[in-house]
């Protein structure tokens, strides 16, 4: 998925806006690269963006790995701005990552580095308070009976 654990405390907290309609998407973004293809830059966040995006279409997987993904779109303009990792695959989960499951495509967003309380320094992820890890994953339908009789 993304960069290693040790580094992320020093990363900047970015504000993420929709590039199409300029509405605010998220205030806790982190610039990262895709594990599967380090050429691809994106912005990730840990908490589900609230009331700014919603899911579109259904789950899918890419060729690079077996992670189950689902696209998200900006609620204001309906354009796809990123995706959510519904269920990570084993290899990705075991490798180093920042533990974020919500991603924004860099071409779909415009970002701003946030400043800390003083207004003089950049706000870093290390400065942010810890969060409860309460992910709201999709529940799969239970294994269905082969034949109903």
């Amino acid at each position: 998925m993304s960069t290693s654990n040790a580094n992320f405390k020093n990363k900047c907290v970015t504000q993420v806006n929709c590039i199409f309609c300029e509405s605010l998407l998220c205030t806790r973004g982190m610039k990262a690269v895709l594990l599967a293809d380090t050429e691809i830059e994106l912005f990730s966040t840990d908490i589900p963006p609230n009331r700014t995006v919603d899911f579109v279409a259904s789950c899918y997987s890419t060729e690079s790995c077996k992670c189950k993904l689902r696209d998200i779109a900006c609620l204001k303009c309906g354009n796809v701005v990123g995706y959510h990792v519904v269920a990570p695959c084993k290899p990705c989960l075991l490798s180093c990552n920042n533990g974020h499951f919500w991603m924004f495509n860099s071409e779909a967003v415009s970002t701003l580095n946030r400043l800390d309380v003083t207004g003089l320094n950049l706000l870093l992820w290390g400065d942010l308070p810890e969060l409860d890890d309460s992910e709201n994953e999709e529940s799969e339908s239970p294994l269905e009976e082969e034949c109903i009789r």
Partner: protein
Amino acid sequence: MAVVPDSGVLTFSIFKWSSYSSTYLPENILVDKPNDQSSRWSSESNYPPQFLILKLERPAIVQSITFGKYEKTHVCNLKKFKVFGGMSEENMTELLSSGLKNDYNKETFTLKHKIDEQMFPCRFVKIVPLMSWGPSFNFSIWYIELHGIEDPDVVQPCLNWYSKYREQEAIRLCLKHFRQHNYTEAFESLQKKTRIALEHPMLTHLHDQLVLQGDFDVCEELIDKAVRDGLFNQYISQQEYKPRWSQIIPKCNKGDGDDNRPGMRGGHQMVIDVQTETVYLFGGWDGTQDLADFWAYSVQENQWSCISRDTEKESGPSARSCHKMCIDSQRRQIYTLGRYLDSSVRNSKSLKSDFYRYDIDANTWTLLSEDTSADGGPKLVFDHQMCMDSEKHMIYTFGGRILTCNGSVEDSRTSEPQFSGLYAYHCHAGTWSLLREDSCNAGPEDVQSRIGHCMLFHTRNRCLYVFGGQRSKTYLNDFFSYDVDGDHVEIISDGTKKDSGMVPMTGFTQRATIDPELNEIHVLSGLSKDKDKREENVRNSFWIYDIARNNWSCVYKNDQTVKENPGKALQEEEPCPRFAHQLVYDEMHKVANAHMFPGGSCSPTEVMWCSLSVFSLARFEEKAQSEPLSALKYLQNDLSLTVDHADPEETKEFQLLPSALFKSSSDFIPLGFSDVDQTYAQRTQLFDTLVNFFPDSMTPPKGNLVDLITL
């Protein structure tokens, strides 16, 4: 002079809008730029009312509307919308109610532009989005084009007709108002001057006899004649079916143990012989093992009889469930094909698809084939469908999941399930032909196979109708027909446009039957999966599909799930929702028997029409005011005869009637300006009720002048 006027693109401008968000202005719909995500109108929210009102440069006949799209699918596309049109902003009529597919293709829809074959013009067109493909997202429209006729030579006469039509309807409303209030002179004067008819002469005569003369006998004759002349047929055909469940409790003779009725089971099969009104039941699964018992139920006698406790012992099929049967009523033969084998026994038992026929009169089983697959027919399948074509002596089977041998336990889970295609069996020759293979292609003649679907054969138009079903984890919504003589597939609905609530929910274990005479398909649904709620609920719902009109209507829906009301009395009124049940249809007697333990049936209700009782009641009520004693005698003697005392509703209504004898006439409040008395008012009300049964072309306008007045 049959010159078809040219239809062209109409020029319009944006007149009004409900809202817009960001840079997504209404004007953007005038431009078609599919690759620009900003070239659209987008509402500010999806809270109603949201709309766009377009103003045409000139009044025109608006014949069609085209929606442009974005180059990719987009959640803001309109899943549901309505289009209105009219000559003025306040006075618009609905021209279209539909939805867009969520793709990148332009879509064109025909708009209503005629009233009774006469074209009418519009100056304003209003587009009202109702739902987008992503329920939480706003509405977007990318591009709009309107097509129609602008030529003044064509439009002007239509405008003239439209004005004249409005004028005429206004006068008719006045006439109706005058007559209701007995302003006789005004009525006659207006009618004489304009020569406009308020209604068909027959109804004028009825009004005269009923309201003015109060001659109920003549009125009865007039209504009787109307019924005989078929004038009420349009009304009757539009009436909804009313479901009526009645539990069938078969007779059991004294001394018989539990053996005189089939035990509880699922995955069994039932067929009905409509000629002898006998239902045949074979096989099934009792929770522990497959069954091989064979029963017949006589509808007339209301009694089960066991034909065989174990058909295998009589050269018939071994115990099985999830097989399919069909009956050839003409030749009095029953066929059975397919069965389900648990994965644990699939390796040990033979996977040959045996095919049997039972001759009712000879009471013998014949093995037609040890393995239909070897004969060019289907492999061993379960949850398939089978239909009988008695006329050409053919059997059609489609779908079902093919049972395969497992290499190991792991393999059975991960291997792709295979589904069986469409096959025909020529009974006379005893041969099979493959008509359509299972195909995931979307060609016009391709069919996708599935399990748990419904398939019915229409004996009149000689088509197979297939709908619903499941393919692995996907629930299929499509509906297609197959012309058996022409070898042609016709897609009725590809299942992408879904109006939730307007068509049966994607369900599994739907059971359907067909009536070729009424041209209807009846569907009873058990287990159904509500895509939005993501639960699987067992609920009863009964739907009727009108083949000619291509529309579904829900006759009955039980919204309660099994868990919600375990102890409720509902279970006594109707069978509790269930699945793996069976449904047979007696098309001769128009009764559907849903074989559900303990059993149930429902029938369409006839229109409750009794002209005699309507006039008898009117007579009674008028007498009650003037001659109470005579009215009482009338009630006890004449009226009582017309009541069905076995019907609790009718009896209750009858018992309430005597209260009219004690009502004082001061209950009636005369309206300020007219001299209408209670009798006149009641008779007018009765007339208005009777008018509803006649076709609209004969009746006065439905509205009333006073309703146009707003505070």
